[in-house]
């Protein structure tokens, strides 16, 4: 197990190097930040001065090695746009994204698994068919459409929920949370539902498939025959066995929700990391974009490794060699 973890960590480092290299190559074609930084009326000479002051006149490989060296020392450079440390800017936005992603994954887990079980129990009932049709919609509807529809219905026509932002937040010093105020929670509802829709549909379908398979097993029939209560049979005997792949999937999705909540955050003007990333892309703010992508890679790689380990704990028969 230990060798396995070490090997995975080493692989992770290689992936990070590859990601950073790709980022650097792509940025050669992503536009020139110097132009805006020198100002609209700067002359060619002044533009060159800015380029040199940022070290952007150096060849790409020199810039790349310098970036790696600094990153290894925990320094990801300063944003070209706000001239503040890039890592700080991103981490400042982390709580908003984390709270949004956590709520979304909770909604998907509760409703995805719950509805999945309901559907599996009576697959041909009309409500099951309706739920399955709805899940198909959840998978195929793009996030931006879900978000805009929810805003139109609940914020514009009915007018009971706010359309954007985080509402009142409480600053705990290291973490600015919206979960402690009623206003903050009201603001969380629509974006969390939007972000969870796709994941919810996936988890629902996964649970349903697993449940239908397990419910047909001999040991479930035995359990029913023993006269156990339906709750015990369904939850304790059937669902538990179905949950392993579901939890794995949810874990992997959680990483993605944190890293790529960009569309939802933009529509709801949610002040999270994805929102920052999009603004930075518009402004060609390379240090922020690179740092973001590196951070996202670290999160996803870590969650992958954790899920692998967790999987081995849940199912001792699994061996990694």
């Amino acid at each position, binding site marked *: 197990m230990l060798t396995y973890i070490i090997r995975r960590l080493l692989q992770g480092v290689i992936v990070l190097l590859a990601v950073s290299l790709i980022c650097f190559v792509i940025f050669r074609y992503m536009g020139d930040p110097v132009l805006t930084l020198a*100002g609209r009326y700067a002359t060619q*000479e002044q533009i060159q001065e800015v380029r040199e002051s940022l070290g952007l006149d150096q060849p790409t490989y020199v810039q790349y090695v310098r970036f790696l060296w600094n990153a290894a020392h925990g320094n990801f450079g300063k944003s070209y746009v706000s*001239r503040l440390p890039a890592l700080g800017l991103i981490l*400042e936005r982390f709580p908003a994204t984390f709270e949004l992603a956590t709520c979304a994954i909770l909604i998907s887990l509760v409703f995805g698994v719950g509805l999945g079980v309901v559907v599996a129990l009576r697959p041909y009932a009309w409500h099951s068919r309706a739920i399955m049709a709805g899940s198909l919609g959840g998978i195929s509807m793009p996030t931006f459409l879900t978000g805009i529809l929810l805003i139109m219905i609940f*914020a514009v026509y009915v007018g009971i929920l706010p*359309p954007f932002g985080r509402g009142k937040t409480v600053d705990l010093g290291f973490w600015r949370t919206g979960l402690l105020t009623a206003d903050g929670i009201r603001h969380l509802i629509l974006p969390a539902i939007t972000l969870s829709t796709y994941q919810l549909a996936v988890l629902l379908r996964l649970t349903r498939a697993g449940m239908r398979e397990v419910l047909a097993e001999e040991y479930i029939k035995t359990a029913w025959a023993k006269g156990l209560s339906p709750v015990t049979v369904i939850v304790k005997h059937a669902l538990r066995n179905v949950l392993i792949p579901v939890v794995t999937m949810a874990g992997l999705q959680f990483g993605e929700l944190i890293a790529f909540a960009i569309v939802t955050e933009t529509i709801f003007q949610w002040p999270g990391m994805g929102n920052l990333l999009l603004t930075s892309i518009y402004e060609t703010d390379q240090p922020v974009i690179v740092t973001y992508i590196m951070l996202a890679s670290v999160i996803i790689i870590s969650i992958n490794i954790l899920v692998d380990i967790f999987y081995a704990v849940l199912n001792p028969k699994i061996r990694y060699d």
Partner: protein
Amino acid sequence: MKKFAWVAAIALMLVALLAVGPAAAKSLVVAVDSPPRMMNPHGDDSDAGLSYMANFFDGLLQRKGAGGKLVPALAVKWEHPDALSWKFYLRKGVTFHNGNPFTAADVKFSFERLGNPEVSEFLNTGKQISAVEVLDDHTVVIKTSEPIPWFANNMHQIFIMDKESTEARDSGEVQNRPIGTGAYKLEEWVKGSYVRLVANEDYWEGAPAIKNVEIRPITEASTRFAALVSGQAEIVTGVPVELYEPVVNNAKLEVVSRPARRSIFLALGNKAEDPWSDIRVRKAMYMAINEEEIIEKVMRGHATPAAQIPDPPTIGYNADLKRLSYDPDMAKKLLTEAGYPNGFEVTLTGPNDRYVQDEKICEAVAKYLAKVGIKVNLDVKPKSIFFPEVADGVLDFYLIGWFDGTYDMGRTYFKIAHSRDAEKGFGGLNGAAYSNAELDKLLESTAKILDTEKRKETLQRLNKMAMDEQIVWIPLHYQEDLYAIQKNKGISFDPRPDRWMVYKEISK
């Protein structure tokens, strides 16, 4: 019973969640289209950035309200003793937000800071200043290295910082917390969420009417609209033309529009081997474009036709210039005369995230030109890729927009019309490398003209040469700025020509 208690509790919680009241009176909530990049007044020269800074800081001069007239601010008057000197008499008794008195040392510090690429996007202005002489605590003379006729016209954009606190604080603090003399102090800035301003009760012009302002940057247009309709914002900037109808039809809302200063036009190169170096071809391309229809269909009526680049209040605007009429038959005839009866191919480049309907305008232009036999290859791309190409001067034919913050076309023409000359710093955004020796000469002669009347006359002549005789550009239209406000809140808001949101000018 227990079950009922639970249901009741949840229902009560929901009701409580929905019943959070609106904000208190004498405060204003505004949803704007772009977030602030930083709180350093010299670090961002875009109007979106200056719009924030104008509330925290003052310039030596300011432009007031909807008219945009240049009037004193931190300087009570100014003189122009010789071609290279600008003398400012400073206002007495003004203090910064931290209590420090405003003196000539702060002016010297601020102007010297402009030349530092680490903190300034006003490098061009900064590098043209050769010395800032402090005569006494309230008189300064700013010397430029060459004559800059429009120097004072730009003084509303150069904000004065407090020397002591800017030097004492680390750079991160300076980027995050503005300390100026402005009508508002920064209360809180939560990046991505809001910027809260609180009135500066000791403001030298008198405390502003609105005591608290909350600015909420919302980049997504439909969300900004939702914020307005749901009553979460009282003024919204940047209403997209697609959403104009729903706003007008909503009884609670009112649209405030004003002609924008920015003109949209097509720039065209004139390399000898290209068909479009022939004036007849240029004229044909101009006449083939149905601008009336672009305004009606693409801009949905929210634009006015332009016959030149500058807008009426700008020095250099020539009222005699008229658009060439839309006449595709004449265009075809001119093309045949020039030896291109079957047309030719040309690439039209343009941004797709910069101006109102920019991509759609390019598409429309391509269709009009196709009708007279010119095959247009569209190359529309994000501004972060488009503008570097303009700066490199590698394009043939492109769409761009412009207005000059100094209200004097001199600076702009040097940037976009003069032949590219890296050494002298001319033609930096002349993206199709247009070059005309006669025009260059006339333009260079204006640099030394300081007399306003004479400048006006020469720049008007230059404008006529560019638009009438040479067709350097094909002008399209002036944009219109659209704002929406809540109707019954008694908000009095008259938009500024530069799109800045200056809250001391708004009352409620």
